[in-house]
């Protein structure tokens, strides 16, 4: 609801702050001594254009805010599952950061069943399903690992568990 009413204003505001920050940082970049346009030229250009566009977006939306609010009222409320989304996000976050130190095989075998369980619809969380998920994950992990190791000659992060297969 909130996003529908104020979404565009938030977007505009965010872009205004971002472009302002970028312009300040671009100012601090060294000027080129040999040519007219140095490394600061493009960031400055993009910064100015973005700022103007973002300001325009905010302006138009503040002007039409009443209309927007009325429109948003009539829309049906979407039923979204933020818990699943956030858990998935956290899982992916942990996965990508552990991939290097712990290694591909262990992280993936652990990550996959958890992620599948989180995503599974509520009626598919019986014991039988969990076993099925785990087996799929283990098989998949090893297939991918060996396919890349021997098929494509790409060595995935080994981590703590160095194996010479």
């Amino acid at each position, binding site marked *: 609801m909130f996003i529908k009413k104020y979404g565009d204003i938030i977007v505009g505001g965010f872009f205004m702050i971002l472009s302002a920050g970028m312009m300040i940082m671009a100012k601090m970049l060294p000027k080129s001594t040999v*040519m007219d346009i140095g490394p600061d030229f*493009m960031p400055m250009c993009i910064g100015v254009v973005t700022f103007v*566009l973002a300001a325009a977006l905010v302006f138009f939306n503040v002007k039409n805010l009443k209309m927007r609010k009325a429109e948003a009222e009539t829309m049906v409320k979407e039923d979204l*599952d933020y818990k699943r989304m956030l858990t998935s*996000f956290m899982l992916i976050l942990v996965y990508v950061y552990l991939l290097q130190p712990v290694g591909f095989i262990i992280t993936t075998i652990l990550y996959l069943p958890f992620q*599948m369980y989180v*995503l599974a619809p509520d009626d598919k969380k019986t014991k039988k399903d969990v076993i099925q998920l785990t087996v799929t994950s283990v098989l998949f992990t090893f297939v991918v690992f060996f396919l890349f190791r021997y098929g494509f000659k790409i060595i995935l992060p080994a981590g703590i568990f160095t194996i010479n297969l």
Partner: protein
Amino acid sequence: MNALISLGNAYARIFTPGSLLLMAAGVSVGIIFGSIPGLSASMAVALFLPLTFSMSPSMGMNMLVAVYIGGISGGLISAILLNMPGTASSIATCFDGYPMAQKGEAGKALGFGIVFSFLGSVFSFIILTFCAPMLADIALKFTPAENFGISFFALTMVAVLASGSMLKGVLAGMLGLIFSLVGMAPIDGTARFTFGSSSLMAGYDTLPTLIGIFAISEILITAESMGHGQMETIKMKPIKGFGFTWKEFVYQIPNAIRSALIGTGIGILPGIGGSTSGMLAYVTAKNMSKHPEEFGKGCPDGIVATETANNATIGGAMIPLLVLGIPGDGVTAMMLGGFLIHGLSAGPLLFVKNADVVYGIFAACMICVTMMLLIEFFGIKVFVQLLKIPKHILMPLILVLCCVGAYATNNRIFDVQSILLFGLVGYLYHKFRLPTTPFVLCFLIGKMLETYLRRGIMQYKSFGAFFQRPIFDAFFFVAIGVVVWSVYKEYKMYLSKKAVKATEQS
């Protein structure tokens, strides 16, 4: 006449069971690489390079061509079925392919994609075979100024893409430009916006960015809508043959010809590549269409335009490669490596000294593309089965493949971590109803634009001197025209919307 005789000889040489089998294997592996997000056609070619050591030069090059063709065309499968472009070339295939698949028309969408991939390639190969030396001559005259003109032109296409809510669309693109600035500046290598991180010095790689925007955000969006308890399964309409009628095919012909020309044209220009050509063809098709509002909602025209163009790029990109020894994109750069391995030097002399290899490649192109058509045609029914795997199992598996693909690009874990960042960007774009297409287009072109601009200014001393180049002028003024026209159209649309609202209230 000489060309035809040499071509005939080449065909005769290729039609041996051994070389046909090798090419079929190459095409199949290419398709698999192409269809997995994160594994690209250039990686497939890199993988096959060492395998060609022991082969004769002609055979080796034919095999690489087979992998290349399979790799570019395989991207359409995952783009249509999973909304994840398997390669950068098939980004625009997602826009209409995935909505079609959701309507149960996955088979038809694949059919369109495959047939027009084939036709696009054939078109570009005919051009390659008969006009290569002539076209290379023109492309050789291009300076950074012209390349800047083309990049600028491609960038203004964002305005067209964003029609409907232009301000938001263009802003969405600006973020792509901002991300493309991160890393070392072109030419002088000044570190920009790296915040002291050495991983950021090289900037964000294209592939992880695409994977993040398309694949990771898709997983988050799926997670969000899983709470309803029931699983939505897409009902598939059974298909016959390629799934479309002769009438539909005839209707697409003008669109296909236009896209094939765009694709080949872009392919010839060094450094621009299949992703831009596919996108440009898509936007042009949308612009020329009598029903532009259907684009993005599952309109076959979009698939036809993109797939024709990105495959037509192959033939185009081979022209500067063979004639001048200049690679047009990452894959052709790998192919150049292949030439070196076999002691051939790509360039004007290749046509004189190793005419058999050159015509062998021409012949191999045609045969491989036919194989691709057959393999993918018989594969349609198998590919579509992918959609039957429940989403909660399929999505995590894809995520792991994406991570592995991102890692394999440069062998650095930073790329894997950056897909999460772009996944978040894609998810927030979805939440705030910003289109992701402009972001991707701007990200791809941003670096090119700056490099060519600064290189051009170095060469000509001032921007004003660019205008003395007629080709630059043409692109530049057409680009300005496109912007003005889009803004005008947008303004008119705004006025008519306002009028409708006013009548509703009164």
